[in-house]
């Protein structure tokens, strides 16, 4: 009896020890943790901690999250991550953040609350399930800031977005931006003194939604107070007075943030062509930008044939290289994916932008935000300025120029052999193999273009364009350098002349363009159209304040904290015509400026919150093998598919003698032939099916092999070692 009591007592003591230590020990050591993930996914950045530490009034964060529905759309992992991150925010804010996680039931008070805070559910299915996944933050004066729809693809910016939300609520006033502009952004008389007054640019109203915008007169003789203005925006600076430049210089050195928009050729500044006095439509700010580590290539506008906006020209859609549609769908590298300013953008349109370069001896880091494709190139801006016509009328000339300079010459010598190698001259690093098909059937049915020996790349591109137009591909594929289209099988007839035994003969062969175009595309460098600079800077006024300067602040020679700025080499992109059609936005253009200013106006803590590298880790090996196998089977499959097509054609021909009722009058010989062909066709089809099956099987086989290895090898090893040990024991015992 006593032993039972004792064991019961032991159980009680043990359980009490366990439960109390789990509760009290766990709670006391709540902040003790080691984040062992490679990207420190579960550790708040120092910038976030600083921001949270400065909150001085309670903020309520309400996460509306239909947790049970999350698996249906595959966001449960992201959902967990959001919950955890919010919990971290709550912890780090030291009681100033109250977190509520709410799963709104249909027709409940919570659902009403969500709606009143501007968070709506998404209809998931026919049952009418509503998925809520949004965040609303309110402060003590009931100001609300929301993220209506948390997006898993933006996971790496989650911390930044949340921190921004907190700042929005904990800072009472909207950020204040000072604007220096040579353009009538607010409306008024344009460059043509005789024309009607122009309306205000819509971007100004857009900016006013987020910022307090103050337009300053061109001449400023007093310092800009870094405490008064959160950022300075300079638009199209033309002959900016020295004192204004000095004010901006000192403002930047004192830690102020500056966004500069310069343009070698501002199309919308020009008056209409008929009433045009020749005016200089360029702007620059060389000394200041140089001091910040950025040079604008003087007198150069940048174009990109691949990104050219399609304009109608003589019943054709012509890509206009100077009107660049920076589309991440065409080239993922044009808008920086890893910077918060551009990461969520898909399309930005610019008109005759300039080219930015890192200045020599720059002390700042230069991060490109917007770039052309490697095919982008600069051209002399004078050509545009000289032209009496509108820039669009220049399109055909410009396209021709771009094609001409596009990329070197393709040189053929003699008759190209099957598999001959052709080197694109003029700077192409890797010689490309130019494979020729000698099979006349390949060219059958393809419209062909004659291409002479020593054809230039422009000829090739032009030929390709015609090919694609004939083939009726979509308009976006008419871009002459589109590789995808080139791979779709455009052929070019190459003709050469050679001395034969009976005099000169012409030899025609069909060549595949894809290799040539591949070679062209690898050439060239991306041109920078917008960039972020950050780092220590020096003054561009080493001699101190200029004359007429009225401020009596001490002259700053060097920056006290890191300078933060964004430079964009275009102004046209903000014009209504390039941003909106009617009320609907055409692209992400307005966001470029709004994001840039929002980002700059944020504290340095917020700026430090770079994107956190969260990516889904995949089996790269499997994908490699997958591609390799696909390539291998492709060739085989292509042959078979061709054979199938040919047989189908032959059978159709044999059957063509059918009368109206579909009865075919044929000889028994013909019937035999049709039967044979049909038989062969069936075999080809099943062979094709087998090839497809093989492809899948090969990939599955690897999985099976790996599984079997992991299933059998370790136990096999254990058994082997066990037997060896057993044997060892037996022999030892015998020896004894």
């Amino acid at each position, binding site marked *: 009896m006593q*032993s039972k009591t*004792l*064991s019961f*007592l*032991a*159980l009680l*003591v*043990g*359980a009490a*020890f*366990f439960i109390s*230590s*789990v*509760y009290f*020990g*766990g*709670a006391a*050591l*709540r902040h*003790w*943790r*080691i*984040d*062992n*993930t*490679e*990207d420190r*996914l*579960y550790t708040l950045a120092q910038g976030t901690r600083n921001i949270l530490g400065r909150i001085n009034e309670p903020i309520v964060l309400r996460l509306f999250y239909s947790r049970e529905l999350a698996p249906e759309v595959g966001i449960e992992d992201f959902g967990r991550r959001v919950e955890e991150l919010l919990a971290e925010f709550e912890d780090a804010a030291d009681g100033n953040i109250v977190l509520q996680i709410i799963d709104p039931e249909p027709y409940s008070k919570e659902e009403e609350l969500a709606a009143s805070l501007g968070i709506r559910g998404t209809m998931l299915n026919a049952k009418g399930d509503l998925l809520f996944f949004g965040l609303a933050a309110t402060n003590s004066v009931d100001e609300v800031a929301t993220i209506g729809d948390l997006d898993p693809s933006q996971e790496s910016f989650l911390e930044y977005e949340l921190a921004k939300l907190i700042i929005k609520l904990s800072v009472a006033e909207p950020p204040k931006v000072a604007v220096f502009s040579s353009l009538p952004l607010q409306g008024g008389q344009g460059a043509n003194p005789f024309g009607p007054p122009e309306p205000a640019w819509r971007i100004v109203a857009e900016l006013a939604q987020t910022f307090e915008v103050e337009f300053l007169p061109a001449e400023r003789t007093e310092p800009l107070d870094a405490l008064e203005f959160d950022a300075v925006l300079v638009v199209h600076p033309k002959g900016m007075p020295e004192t204004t430049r000095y004010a901006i210089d000192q403002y930047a050195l004192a830690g102020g943030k500056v966004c500069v928009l310069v343009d070698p050729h501002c199309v919308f500044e020009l008056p209409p062509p008929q009433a045009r006095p020749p005016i200089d439509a360029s702007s620059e700010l060389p000394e200041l930008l140089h001091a910040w580590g950025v040079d604008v290539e003087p007198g150069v506008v940048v174009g990109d044939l691949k990104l050219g906006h399609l304009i109608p020209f003589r019943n054709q859609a012509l890509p206009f290289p100077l009107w660049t549609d920076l589309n991440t769908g065409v080239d993922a590298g044009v808008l920086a994916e890893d910077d918060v300013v551009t990461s969520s953008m898909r399309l930005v349109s610019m008109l005759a932008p300039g080219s930015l370069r890192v200045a020599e001896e720059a002390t700042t880091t230069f991060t490109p935000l917007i770039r052309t494709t490697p095919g982008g190139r600069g051209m002399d801006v004078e050509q545009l300025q000289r032209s009496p016509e509108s820039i669009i009328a220049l399109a055909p000339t410009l396209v021709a120029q771009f094609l001409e300079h596009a990329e070197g010459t393709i040189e053929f010598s003699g008759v190209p052999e099957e598999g001959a190698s052709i080197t694109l001259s003029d700077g192409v690093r890797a010689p490309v193999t130019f494979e020729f098909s000698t099979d006349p059937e390949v060219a059958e049915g393809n419209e062909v273009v004659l291409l002479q020996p020593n054809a230039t790349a422009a000829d090739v591109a032009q030929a390709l364009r015609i090919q694609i137009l004939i083939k009726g591909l979509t308009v976006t594929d008419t871009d002459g350098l589109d590789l995808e289209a080139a791979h779709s099988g455009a052929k070019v007839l190459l003709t050469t002349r050679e001395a034969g035994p009976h005099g000169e003969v012409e030899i025609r062969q069909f060549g595949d363009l894809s290799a040539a175009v591949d070679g062209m595309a690898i050439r060239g460098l991306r041109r920078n159209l917008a960039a972020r600079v950050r780092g220590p800077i020096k003054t561009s006024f080493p001699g101190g304040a200029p004359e007429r300067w009225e401020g009596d602040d001490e002259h700053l020679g060097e920056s006290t904290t890191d300078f933060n700025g964004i430079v964009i080499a275009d102004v046209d992109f903000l014009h209504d015509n390039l941003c909106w059609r009617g009320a609907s936005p055409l692209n992400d253009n307005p966001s470029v400026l709004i994001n840039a200013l929002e980002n700059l106006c944020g504290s340095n803590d917020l700026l430090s919150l770079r994107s956190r590298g969260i990516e*889904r*880790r*995949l*089996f*790269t*090996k*499997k*994908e490699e093998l997958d591609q390799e196998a696909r390539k291998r089977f492709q060739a085989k499959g292509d042959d078979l598919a061709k054979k199938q097509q040919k047989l189908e054609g032959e059978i159709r021909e044999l059957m063509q003698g059918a009368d109206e009722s579909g009865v075919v009058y044929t000889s028994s010989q013909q019937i035999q032939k049709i039967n044979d062909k049909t038989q062969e066709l069936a075999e080809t089809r099943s062979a094709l099916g087998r090839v497809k099956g093989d492809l899948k099987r090969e990939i599955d086989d*690897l*999985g099976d092999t*790996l*599984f079997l*290895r*992991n*299933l059998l*090898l*370790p*136990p096999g*090893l*254990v*058994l082997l070692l*066990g037997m060896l*040990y057993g044997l060892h*024991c037996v022999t030892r015992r015998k020896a004894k």
Partner: protein
Amino acid sequence: MSAFAETLQRSTYRSQWFRIFKRELRGYFTTPVAYVFLVIYLLVQAGFTWGIGRLYEQSNATLYPFFNYHPWFLLFLMPGLGMRLWAEERRSGTIELLLTLPIRAGSAVCGKFLAAWTFFGIALLLTMGEWYTVAWLGGPDHGVILVGYLGTFLMAGAYLAISSCASALSKNQVIGLVLGVVVCFSFMLADIPMMVSAVDALGVDALTEAFLQMSFRTHYDNLLRGVIEARDLVFFGTLIGAALYINTALVQLKKAS
């Protein structure tokens, strides 16, 4: 046995547990039972990882499918390993001998437990092939996997400590096994959505939170993220400590009676 008894008598209290540990650990490899356990464990984990977890098809470079099922099949395997720790000694009567020796019951309990835990650690090491495979297939986050292994080892330790305790209650190994599974399972209840919603329905948030805090799964999942948190270490550590304390009390009672 007598030689071992003499050695034990001569050793200090501190090294007693270590000698028992060594004897027990060596004992595992001289019986076929251990090999059977290893083979079963290795087959089962590969089956769950590749068959049910679909590691290959999911294409994610993580070992999550491997870790994810461990709480469930270890629920049976660890009591299987722990059931013989004391029941065997009691059935064969060797416990009398062990306890007549001038050693602390605590040393015996710790020695036996640590030997079994180390044995499982060896089994776990034999699954490194999975890690290698995933590393070969793609670039996993090795830090996360390392913490995952640590979590699995800790959870197995907790299962084992409970099983060892259950084993000390009865001469019959089967009873020890069933008891061990039942107690371990009760710590897994919070992983069953039905149970959570039942507790949640009571409407006391603190109770739901407490219920979740008692769950193996909650703490194990925390570790699987790749973050080592004090509260998870405290949970598994004190659970092992408490179970071993009760275990010692039970053995001492046996000695006294």
